[in-house]
């Protein structure tokens, strides 16, 4: 948008239906930040951001949909009379009848290519564009140096959603698995067996891996969100990018590109199910996602601090 943009600033008090309207006191922290220590105001801003995010009906709907994935898998496996043939369907599907804890892992494998990027794309794409669309962005920017802080807070909110989304799948999978199937020692990919306690620890590690995997996509979504005032556009672009990256990752002709794609290590969390744990992919994934956060964070910064905020 150029300074000569003829668009009229839109200031509306309430958002469209379906969005929880910001309560009057939630613009307060940013507005009164001038007189407060910077750290306290950033914490207040983050608190307000998280409250708004997790009070949204949309957020709850997405988390509920994610929680439904392991439930569907578990019920489907429970109701089929014929045993699942090993090697058919998603990985670990045949292990579910022996051990309910595998529901969580199967559900994560199923949701990583589409469902998790979809929900993360919606949240990350909405971060800045959503506020611009609602006309609340400029109230959030009253404080000096507010833009960088707002960007950081917005990204932290998207990251918090990544954690929540992954944990939702993992916890709901573990619960439904424990309810419908026997729970016992878990067989690792290496053929070794570990106890229930350690398997819970490994499930949490996998959840951490998947969360880290989604951070790069969140940074991309944040950047795209600063480019537009139409949140749906930013969401769609982010989701399309995640699908495109996975398509490119499947083409052997683009071998040289694969280690640079943010989706390249998404399914490699199985390395945490080996004995001993292979940390190589965890490290490589974290490094790659860190690079994406830096690059797209810098791009988002460049765009956001030079942008004319009219709404």
């Amino acid at each position, binding site marked *: 948008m150029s300074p000569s943009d003829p668009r009229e600033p839109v200031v509306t008090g309430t958002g469209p239906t379906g969005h929880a309207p910001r309560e009057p006191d939630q613009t307060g922290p940013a507005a009164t930040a001038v007189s407060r220590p910077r750290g306290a105001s950033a914490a207040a801003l983050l608190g307000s951001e998280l409250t708004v995010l997790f009070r949204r009906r949309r957020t709850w709907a997405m988390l509920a949909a994610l929680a439904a994935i392991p439930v569907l898998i578990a019920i489907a496996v429970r109701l089929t009379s014929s045993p699942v043939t*090993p*090697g*058919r*369907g*998603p*990985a*670990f599907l*045949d*292990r579910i009848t*022996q051990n309910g804890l595998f529901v969580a892992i199967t559900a994560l*494998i199923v949701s990583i290519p589409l469902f998790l990027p979809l929900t993360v794309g919606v949240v990350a794409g909405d971060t800045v564009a959503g506020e611009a669309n609602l006309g609340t962005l400029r109230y959030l920017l009253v404080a000096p140096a507010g833009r960088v802080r707002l960007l950081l807070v917005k990204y932290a909110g998207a990251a918090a959603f990544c954690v929540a989304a992954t944990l939702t799948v993992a916890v709901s999978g573990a619960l439904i698995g424990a309810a419908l199937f026997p729970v*016992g*020692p878990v*067989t690792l*990919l*290496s*053929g*070794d*067996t570990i106890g229930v306690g350690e398997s819970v620890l490994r499930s949490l590690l996998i959840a951490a891996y998947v969360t880290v995997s989604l951070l790069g996509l969140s940074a991309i979504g944040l950047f795209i969100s600063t480019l537009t005032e139409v949140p749906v556009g930013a969401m769609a672009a982010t989701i399309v990018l995640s699908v495109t990256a996975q398509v490119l*990752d*499947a083409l*052997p002709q683009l071998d040289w590109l694969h280690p640079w794609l943010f989706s390249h290590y998404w*399914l*490699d969390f*199985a*390395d945490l199910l*080996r*004995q*001993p744990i*292979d940390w*190589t992919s965890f490290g490589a994934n974290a490094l790659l996602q860190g*690079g994406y956060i*830096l*690059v797209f964070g*810098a*791009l988002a*910064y*460049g765009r956001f*601090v*030079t942008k004319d905020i009219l709404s």
Partner: protein
Amino acid sequence: MTPRTFTKWLPAIVIPAVIAVGALAVPLTAGAAVDLPDKTPEQVLALVGTSTVDALSGTIEQTSELGLPELPTTGPGASANTGAASALELLTGSHTGRVYLNGPDNIRLQVLDNLAERDLVRNGSDVWLYNSKDNSAAHVTLPAKDAAGEDSARKGGMATPEQLAAKFLSAVGPSTTVSVGTDGSVAGRSVYDLVLTPKTTGTLVGTVSISVDSQTGLPLAVEVTARGQEKPAFRLAFTELSLGAPDASLFTFSPPAGASVTEQALPDAAALGQKNAADHATMKADAEKFFAGVTISGTGWDAVVELPAGSVPAELSSSPLLGELTTAVSGGRVISTALVSVLLTDDGRVFAGSVPSERLQAAAVGG
């Protein structure tokens, strides 16, 4: 763009640039020049011979660019994992594996597949093979006395650098020039580079390079480069190596609950003795007949092996996979890879060698 706007965009320019420079610089420093005291090929070979490393844990990476079509391995559950497809799958593409070794009796090999793993565990005379994809385990009990001999044959999937190096070193003879190349580093350790170059120009093999650890004499990498190519057609190398005994629990294996376990008996001397004499005699006759038909023409690198008609099982020769891999030539079908060519003639004979396929055709017509 005003200067003020430019400074705001500066991080967006600098950070990708720094990352690009870093991505280029890290491989360069890893391959930085290493200068070791000069050694003759004989001294490097002796270093290998005196290697006493018998406990290690490490990660091995195998890459093959043989020019064979790559079987789909991406995505969960994509790769077929049975029979011929499994063997071909190991030859094409790349694999990562982990090796744990503690003395000759404790071995663990892991082929790290996508969302799956194939394991080989040897603990004394017990050998377990485990495949996580179909949750199947196989148990083999080695006869006590020739346990060591059986082991190398059983490793199957992924040979260690030691085994490959030993194979090539034993072939060093009048046919090969052996030299020491530039020193390098593999898995963070400085290595001597032993280069074997065939003297004949009739073979597809350009050079075989073996990286020998300068401290322990352990071969850390093997590279086979096809004639006229820059990138190795086959490479097997440690990417991580730590010397010292691995955790003992790695070598104890019991099949997990729910796994399908098969006991596989080895046809050892005692078992063979129990078979009736007639059976034994037919087997022996079959074997003799088979080996009588095998002829090797030429010596050294450009030798051609000929198998008589009928030596290829019918289910393999009629497999559609074979049809995809081979190309029709006059007189049969040929599989040519960067390093090896195989000719299946129409009358059922098989010619193979590390030579261009034209030489195989000439051998088929001449023989």
